């Protein structure tokens, strides 16, 4: 376990800013204590300083997880955001997409979202920007990338893809083993 290097921090924050923009500051400057990112076995964990201190006492091999896993660095040093980060990303989301009930299931099985399944979308969402996917009851389901901007969406035909799937809560069941 070690703190992130500057490069890694930069990659991570670039990725996060696609979803939550400037709100990364809210993650780091919390009123209830000091929260930081830590790298452990190529995975980035986000948790309070107290837990980090405690966890660092366990042998590295036997320590499987601590706090919340945000994602992992690939071998090519790109950052993959995991679905486990949803709890922290969703509240600060800049751009959101709401799904109709019959499109929920499709998304949870790992499919992209077509226009017929789209219930609502935040105004002026740019193309290829990260979005958080919600149900109509405002329950976060996962995140993806907007395939079209809001204006393009209006003109698109019903079967056109609107959101590319990146991660969804169905992964808790589908690939439990690969989560962290």
């Amino acid at each position: 376990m070690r703190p992130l290097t500057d490069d890694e921090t930069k990659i991570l924050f670039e990725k996060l800013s696609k979803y939550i923009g400037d709100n990364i500051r809210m993650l780091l400057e919390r009123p209830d204590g000091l929260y930081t990112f830590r790298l452990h076995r190529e995975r980035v964990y986000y948790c309070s300083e107290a837990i980090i201190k405690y966890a660092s006492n366990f042998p590295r091999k036997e320590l499987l997880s601590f706090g919340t896993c945000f994602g992992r660095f690939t071998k090519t040093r790109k950052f993959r955001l995991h679905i486990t980060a949803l709890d922290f990303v969703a509240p600060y989301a800049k751009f959101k997409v709401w799904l109709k009930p019959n499109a929920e299931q499709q998304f949870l099985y790992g499919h992209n979202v077509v226009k017929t399944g789209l219930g609502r979308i935040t105004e002026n969402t740019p193309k290829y920007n990260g979005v958080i996917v919600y149900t109509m009851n405002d329950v976060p389901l996962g995140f993806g990338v907007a395939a079209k901007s809001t204006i393009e969406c209006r003109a698109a035909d019903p079967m056109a893809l609107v959101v590319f799937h990146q991660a969804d809560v169905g992964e808790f069941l589908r690939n439990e083993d690969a989560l962290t």
Partner: protein
Amino acid sequence: MGRRKVTDDKSAKPVRGPGRKSKKQGEPTFPKELAQTEPTDKKKVSSRGKQRARKRLEKDKLKQTINKNTKLKTATKRQSDGESNDEEQINGYTDENQQWLKPKKKKELFDDDEQNEEESMDEDVPYDDQFNEMESSSEEEEENDGDEPKLDIEKQSKKIREKQRQTKERSEQELLTNIQQHEKVQFPSGQEVTKEAPQADLQLLMHRIREVINVLNDFKNKREANRSRKEYLDLLRQDLCNYYSYNEFLMNKILDLFPLAEVIDFLEANEVQRPVTIRTNTLKTRRRDLAQALINRGVNVDPLDKWTKVGLVIYNSQVPIGATPEYLCGHYMLQGASSFLPCMALAPQPNERVLDMCAAPGGKATYIGALMRNSGILVANDANKDRARAIIANTHRLGLTNTIVTNLDGRHFSEHMGGFDRCLVDAPCSGAGVIAKDQAVKSSKDEKDIQRCFTAQRQILLNAIDSINENSTTGGYIVYSTCSILVEENEAVVQYALNNRPVKIVETGLEFGVEGFTNFKGTSFHPFMKYCRRYYPHLHNLDGFFVAKLKKYSTKQGNKKESETIEKEKKKEEEDDSLEAMADD
């Protein structure tokens, strides 16, 4: 955009099931014996009824005198016979004359219409039998005495009646002999014992089990003179093993644990699945909201019981309950009701350091995390790496942020980390309490498996005690639980901890459940073992479970003082027992 009202039939919410409010208790069922013995004559006779009965008596007397005088025999005969026939039906007598006897025609009545009315009314009203009986019998006698059958047809009918009576008598005798046969327990002959017991006739087997239990319950009176109690018990064990397909080892343990009356209940309860229960994740939602959301998905749910505020029981569901969007979003956890209990007993407080020693798949650990309201530190440990991955997924799904997941051996945990305020040891066990879940337990366990289990349990429990900070201001508690009902894995393990570590048993804080054994088959445990709680499938409709709560009070490794006192107490108890036995004699 915005929410549109859904109008098509598919998405309209169909009415499912009878609804919650329509749940009703079924009709009560009574044993046949009770239903049959309901006598008609116990009905209360109304005052009008009494009046009518009196009137009828008077009229009948009048009738008799008239009959004698006028010798209008046919009419009287039919009438009286008809009446006696009614009697017989009421009293449950045989009515052999029913075949040839026809109810009288109203027009042939020698009496007037008034009496006819009277009688038809009487049929409805229950009346006192006694005087009627006497009267009718007297009439019959009179009839028998009075005349020989003169007509051909009458002779024939008499013959037929005689025949019928004989066959009936014979059949009754047969019935009686049958009953006698069944009342005696038939021991299998030597050959039968050696070869495999008959698998096919389960009904007969069950019958014999019941008979043997019946005999054992009243051994002095019902036994056969040349059979000992042991023979009966052996037969019973053999039969139970065959009927429920247990191995002899586990059946012995069960027979030791329960009184005879409960054994069958317990075994039957093991054949039935426990209800599916879920636990609301209080970090993300409330029970009422969750129930509403699930009902909208077509799941029939109800609050579990009054002892829990987070449990819901699932009656039936149109969707897979482990894959609804609510489940994936971490609003609830699929979890047996019995696994709420150790967490409730542990009662973790916010800002504590809590250890869950054997956490996978994380059901109890996430409940602890929810009780701590995501504060403090929760270490969830499991020795199996693959199973520990399930903890990671579940803690993230349920939104726990204070959790550290480790993959250490529970027997050496304290070498790495100590100073916890509370610790839950849900030790790996034989699973003798969850036979309903895994039928393989019935036949796969033997003495060695149990021994392996309880040695590991002892080591883990001692290690858990070592990792506790006894100076903790809020805690210093250890909760030991297993999903087994065997004494070796429960009370004996706790006793071992008492003997070897500075701990004492405290109350679990669970208001229901059976008390732990303070002595069992000659070994006596610490008297505070009564604070432990046992749960059985047939009594609580939970999985078989054991919960004990300990408090650590010193750092000393050994606990000689404690063990000495226990030995003293043991001696004392033995003395008491022997005194009692003497007093009984």
